[in-house]
């Protein structure tokens, strides 16, 4: 660049000259010029450093034997021993199995449910009926998780309405949440109940984005409603489905622990205890800070690999991607 300087005109030289100053000088000038904006940026940057990046740095305790009195830096190094402890832990396979069972079941059952609902709602021609049913089905999304779990506990209890119903057919009454074999079905069904309406919004939006001339062309080609759904509607919302699917795959190992903590109990740990609830119990209730941080870190690394993998697959298939 330096050799070209001679050739440029004076005007351009004047314009180019600030760029030659070191960045710190230009940065100072930028701050002076946009004092107000930088002042607004300050608390935001402070927030991200203090509450996002500092905890990320705090992950270092996964490689240490953290003792609260000694602090993070005073504690001795542990290398990868906490990771080894977890991988050889008798609970390791149970936790892996439970985490994957819950997340894969929800991928199979909870994920397609809103898509199917959106396709069905799409066939409704009566606007008032459509609006009304949507409004009611969005509602559970706004009810707090604690109340939803309270309902689940009430209704699945031994004198709850589900048992009342089953008793008609002579099924013995039992408190479903005390039996390990019923935990996953209860979890998934309540998830679908609470999320199906809200989940369908995004697909409804994608459906309205489909060009209506595509349907007209399909009709001219002699396609009935079923064929229109297969050849126009589904391909139209496929990119949305794929993006949502990818996000789900990235979260395979990060099943929401709040709901599980509210619904499980020692009787159902056998199927309900997942990696993140284990981190919660070990770390916060038993204060094994370093060990549980290592488990949490292990979990997020695998999640990130899964997300990268799913994203790469989708890119290769030419079906859009997250980044």
């Amino acid at each position, binding site marked *: 660049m330096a050799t070209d300087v001679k050739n440029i005109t004076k005007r351009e030289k004047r314009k180019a000259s600030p760029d030659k100053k070191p960045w710190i000088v230009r*940065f100072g000038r930028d701050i002076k010029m*946009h*004092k*107000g*904006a*930088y*002042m*607004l940026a300050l*608390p*935001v*940057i402070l*927030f*991200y450093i203090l*509450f*996002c*990046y500092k*905890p*990320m740095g705090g*992950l270092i305790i996964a490689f240490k034997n953290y003792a609260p009195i000694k602090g993070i830096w005073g504690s001795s190094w542990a290398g990868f021993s906490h990771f080894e402890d977890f991988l050889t832990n008798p609970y390791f396979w149970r936790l892996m199995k439970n985490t994957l069972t819950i997340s894969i079941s929800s991928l199979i059952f909870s994920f397609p449910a809103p898509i199917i*609902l959106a396709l*069905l*709602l799409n*066939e*409704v021609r*009566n606007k008032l*009926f459509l609006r009304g*049913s949507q*409004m009611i089905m*969005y509602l*559970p999304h*706004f*009810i*707090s*998780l*604690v109340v939803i779990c309270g*309902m689940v*506990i*009430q*209704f699945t209890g031994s*004198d709850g*309405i589900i048992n*009342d119903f089953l*008793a008609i057919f002579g099924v013995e009454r039992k408190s479903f949440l005390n039996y390990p074999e019923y935990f996953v079905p209860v979890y998934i069904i309540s998830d679908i*109940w609470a999320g199906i*309406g809200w989940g369908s919004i*995004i697909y409804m*939006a994608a459906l309205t984005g489909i060009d209506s001339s595509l349907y007209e062309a399909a*009709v001219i080609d002699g396609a009935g*409603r079923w064929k229109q759904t297969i050849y126009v509607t589904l391909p139209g919302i496929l990119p949305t489905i794929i*993006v949502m699917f990818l996000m789900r795959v990235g979260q395979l190992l990060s099943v929401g622990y*709040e709901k599980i*903590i509210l619904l499980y109990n020692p009787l159902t740990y056998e199927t309900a205890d997942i990696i993140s609830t284990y*981190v*919660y119990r070990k*770390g*916060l209730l038993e204060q094994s800070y370093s060990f*549980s941080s290592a488990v*949490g870190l292990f979990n*997020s690394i695998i999640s*990130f690999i899964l997300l990268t993998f799913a994203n790469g697959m989708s890119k290769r298939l030419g079906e859009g991607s997250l980044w």
Partner: protein
Amino acid sequence: MKITTGQRIFSVFNYIFITFLVIVTLYPFWHIVMASFSNSYELMAHSGLLLKPVGFSLQSYKLVLSDNAVIRGFINTVILLITKNTLSILLTLFGAYVLSRKLMITPVMSFMVVVTMFFSGGLIPTYLNVRSLGLDNSFGALIFPTAISTFNLIILRTAFYGVPDSLEEAAHLDGAGDLRILFEILVPLILPSIMVVALYYIVGVWNSWFEASIYLRDRKLFPLQLILREVLVEKQINMDSDSETTAESIQYAIMTVSTVPVLIFYPFMQKYFVKGATVGAVKG
């Protein structure tokens, strides 16, 4: 378009099926409200669907609404709603404004913000961080660590992008500072998006219980959801119960009481939420 018999049959079944889903969604709420107005002992003897209260009684409401823990929980939640939302909305606006400018710091800050969508310290380091800052056992632990949601920040930044640059340039030439440009020109223009973000924050505060359960030890500070958890999940009911009201009745009443505020606001908020759900999630 000609409608075949097959289509007509499908359509009828479709309406029936959706109606069924609507009933399945609505019935649990109905059941809870009806049970809460029922007489405790008649309710215990009752089994099956509950279409109207059995033996009308307001006793459980009397107990719930006069319980100190419930009242304090409501007050704490309201305090949190006001303080946290004010702070969250201001910080998110500031951040989104800076990210939508062409400052030297913008690319660095964008990177810094986006990274947090993929990586976080996780539960334990976050918990230890809050403790090391001395925020535990105070509302600070519920307000500051989650003050900005990156998702909401990006919604507002996108909204700022939609405002033509010429507007701000004109204001700048007239000598308006950044604060004035932000609050007097930009905020009124992106008000609908701010509403969406504010409602997301409000719902977040209203529903959250987990942070409160790990950071708060003093029962006086407990927000409503934590009291609800005690009553509904852990089944610890410390109310001055009388012989006429069962725990179950109290649970139904407390569920109703805590859901009613949401139901009152819901019809007004719904359209903003639907807008937010599609703004943030549809890519490209």
